[in-house]
């Protein structure tokens, strides 16, 4: 409700605003005419199939890919193309990370302190304290000295979330944080993100997973080479919108406390048997 009010009102200034953004690689367009506003304390999901341009959009926002056209505004300031927003956290896709790299969980988290403290060649006592505090907050303080490659998928994601948070960012962008996790880990991560959001953090995460992730988010942006629709899942997740987003027939059932989405009746039966609680909506209310 609060988020719906925020979006219907122009009085609140967006934290991040994207105006008419277009991007591509070589001569191939990835997306065009993207207009988006993210407000402070908003938890949003960028939902779309693999290869629809979600990662490229996140990378353009982060200044890692140059856009073809359009503007990005952060806290009322226009960002130069290719410039990262001044205070942002980023959790990349796990597939892009070299897990055999010789660093411990604590060292990875302390990397995120660079912007806060970049004069000394080595991390300060305060850096260590903050890193330990964040590892405690994400529930893996006991693994601080463990090599990053020896942690489980869920623990690695928590380390990366801690690194994204350790610089005290205004907003955190997560690229498919649940893509290679099982249901239990997805549940834990969503719970953690909901908690952080309740404490005031603005979050944008991308996902192609509708049932176990997207339906539990308070705000979703359906994306496929451009924005198809955005709003609360109960309003946005209709057969028509999802068909336009995912390019195939979709069956959508709205129950009292959850939404079930499937591409066929047999998969819908499996979804009905799945009793994953609607964590985010519960905590949001």
């Amino acid at each position: 409700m609060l988020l719906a009010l925020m979006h219907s009102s122009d009085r609140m200034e967006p934290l991040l605003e994207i105006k008419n953004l277009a991007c591509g690689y070589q001569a191939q367009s990835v997306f065009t005419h993207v207009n988006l506003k993210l407000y402070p304390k908003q938890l949003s999901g960028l939902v779309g199939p693999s290869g629809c341009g979600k990662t490229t959009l996140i990378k353009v926002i982060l200044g890692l890919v140059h856009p073809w056209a359009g503007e990005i505004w952060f806290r009322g300031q226009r960002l130069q193309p290719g410039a990262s927003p001044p205070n942002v956290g980023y959790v990349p896709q796990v597939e892009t990370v070299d897990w055999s790299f010789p660093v411990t969980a604590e060292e990875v988290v302390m990397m995120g302190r660079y912007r806060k403290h970049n004069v000394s060649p080595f991390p300060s006592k305060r850096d260590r304290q903050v890193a330990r505090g964040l590892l405690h907050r994400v529930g893996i303080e006991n693994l601080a000295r463990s090599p990053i490659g020896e942690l489980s998928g869920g623990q690695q994601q928590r380390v990366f979330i801690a690194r994204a948070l350790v610089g005290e960012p205004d907003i955190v962008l997560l690229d498919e944080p649940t893509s290679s996790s099982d249901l239990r880990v997805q549940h834990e991560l969503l719970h953690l993100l909901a908690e952080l959001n309740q404490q005031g953090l603005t979050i944008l995460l991308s996902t192609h997973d509708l049932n176990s992730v997207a339906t539990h988010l308070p705000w979703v942006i359906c994306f496929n080479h451009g924005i198809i629709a955005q709003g609360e899942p109960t309003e946005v997740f209709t057969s028509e919108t999802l068909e336009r987003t995912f390019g195939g027939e979709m069956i959508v059932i709205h129950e009292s406390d959850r939404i079930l989405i499937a591409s066929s009746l047999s998969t819908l039966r499996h979804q009905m048997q799945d009793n994953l609680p609607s964590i985010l909506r519960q905590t949001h209310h």
Partner: protein
Amino acid sequence: MDLLFRPFQYEFFSRALLVAMLAGLLCGVMGVYITTRRMSYIAHGLSHAILGGAVLSYVLQLNFYIGAGIWGFVAALVIQFLTGRKIYADAAIGIVTTASFALGIAIISTYRQFTKNFEAALFGNVLGVTPNDVWVVALVTLILLALVFIFYRPLLFWCFDRDVAKVHGVPVFAMDVLFALMLAAMLVTTLQILGVTLIISAIVIPASIARILSDRFGTMMIYAALLGAGISFAGIYLSYYFDVASGASVVLLSTVVFGIVLLWTNVKQRRKRRIADSHLL
């Protein structure tokens, strides 16, 4: 006892031991960056590319270190520029380095007057280093170690994840340039000691042994530096008694140490697993 100290009575041999230790230390430290960034092939290729610059500086009567250093730096930047433009890094390295190496050979075959120097460049000539060379290697080692110390945090972040490092404010392009410069400087100064063909072992083997022994980047650097210096010293020292080429002696010794450490850690792990299994039963 006299027998043990006999090599030190020759000034050129003491000089060779000192310069080899410095070069081993420097290659060990830089090797940690190179192996963890999976750039071993770049280092190997650049050492060959630098030959072109070395020969050209000789022909143009330029200072070897400056001419070959600039050549190596430019080659590293061209490789970086080509990579990603529909060309993979390994192909870019292949194109740039072989072209540069071929240029060196072409000039040598035209002039036909520095076959001996060519051999030294290929296989190293640590026993032929001059006092001036020792000073250059010491100075470059000192400068590069200072840079590693000063830029430890941004270089570590850049090495682990370039994209996320940029988002967190690390000047990644400056790090690209800085590392290319450091790489070129290291290769040019150590080229005469181990030679184009053998230098990669001094870069890769101590860092790989350090990786087996440690899961921490900083600790790896200390291990790799000590191993690099120690193995180079022992390799050159032993070459005196076994009467083999000094470069080859260093490489063979480092390979033996690598094998021993690998075997030792495997045995240790197996024993640990057996103890853990017996506790479970």
